[in-house]
């Protein structure tokens, strides 16, 4: 981000200067305002899901879910750390079910934990997997297509899932060769 941010920012600012300098500040403020509005709605959904997760954890159900996904996940991420694995399992499950409000806090928890325990490779792999937008049913897009009057709104589900898998595979193949523990 330290490389990308200044490059795009400077290029955009320069373009503003040439075209219409009055656009500059309103654009920044608009971005800030969107962040403020978005964080309010994120707060609402994080409250719901973090509360739910806590109940899930204390009821012992999470251990069951974790056990189901632990083997393949431990294999892929190359970590045995209980906390990272259960957070990662929650994150990927939420992704598949299409619950962004639930998947983000779990991913953040898993990433922070992996970085703390020094397993940077696992954090990077989880990030790449999340970037593929893996989802069983792209509900947002289907809703949008229904609203736009598509003949069969869900017919993009299969190509979306297949392309998602390609995206994940490419990401994992690039990141995975990194040192097991560094």
């Amino acid at each position, binding site marked *: *981000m330290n*490389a*990308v*941010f200044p490059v*795009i*920012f400077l290029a*955009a600012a320069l*373009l*503003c200067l040439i075209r219409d300098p009055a*656009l*500059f500040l*309103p*654009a*920044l403020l*608009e*971005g*800030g305002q*969107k962040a403020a509005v*978005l*964080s309010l709605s*994120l707060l609402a959904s*994080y*409250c719901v899901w*973090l*509360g*739910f*997760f806590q109940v899930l954890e204390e*009821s*012992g*159900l999470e251990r069951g879910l974790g056990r189901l996904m632990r083997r393949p996940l431990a294999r892929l991420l190359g970590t045995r750390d209980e906390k990272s694995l259960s957070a990662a399992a929650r994150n990927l499950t939420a992704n598949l079910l*299409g619950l962004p409000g639930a998947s983000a806090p779990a991913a*953040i928890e898993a*990433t*922070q934990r992996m*970085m703390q325990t020094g397993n*940077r490779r696992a954090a990077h792999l989880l*990030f*790449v997997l*999340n*970037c*593929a937008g893996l989802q069983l*049913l792209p509900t947002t*897009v289907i809703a*949008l*297509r229904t609203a*736009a009057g598509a*003949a069969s*709104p869900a017919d993009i589900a*299969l*190509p*979306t899932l*297949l*392309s*998602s898998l*390609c*995206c994940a595979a*490419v*990401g994992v193949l*690039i*990141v995975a060769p990194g040192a097991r523990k560094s």
Partner: protein
Amino acid sequence: MSAALLLPLLFLCVFAVALFRRVKIYDCFVAGAKRAVPLLVSLFPYLAAVLMLAELFECSGLAALAARALAPLLSAIGIPTEIAPLLLIKPFSGSGSLALLSRILSEYGADSYIARCACVCYGASDTVFYLSAIYFAGTQRKGLLLPVAAALAGQFTATVVGCLLCKWL
């Protein structure tokens, strides 16, 4: 729809099991929800920075310019050039790209090839820069270049594959 049914069922099952195991559900729920506030406070500056960048990227016309520059390359590999702005905004902002997607749907018709490609490309990748900002907020971000590049490469592959699949399926 089944998706709408899933959520209440999920909550119902989990809370029922919790009740059965004598978990204090209310205390527990509140304890979890409490963590949302510090989480969001730590995320907010990153969120603001990325969204400001996204806004500036679009408003300044840089996105349109980059889209035009990329157009010949995209059409050479079979990607409709109309979706170029969507591809460029997607890594930064979910809401921004969703707005673009709905504009494409209404402009070209939901069943057009362009709109179907746009839908697949939208669904087959996530907001790379945004996610990298919030996941790694506050941690050491050294060495993030490779995963970000990998994710973008993945997005590009998904776009190419998605547009191909839209032609066949």
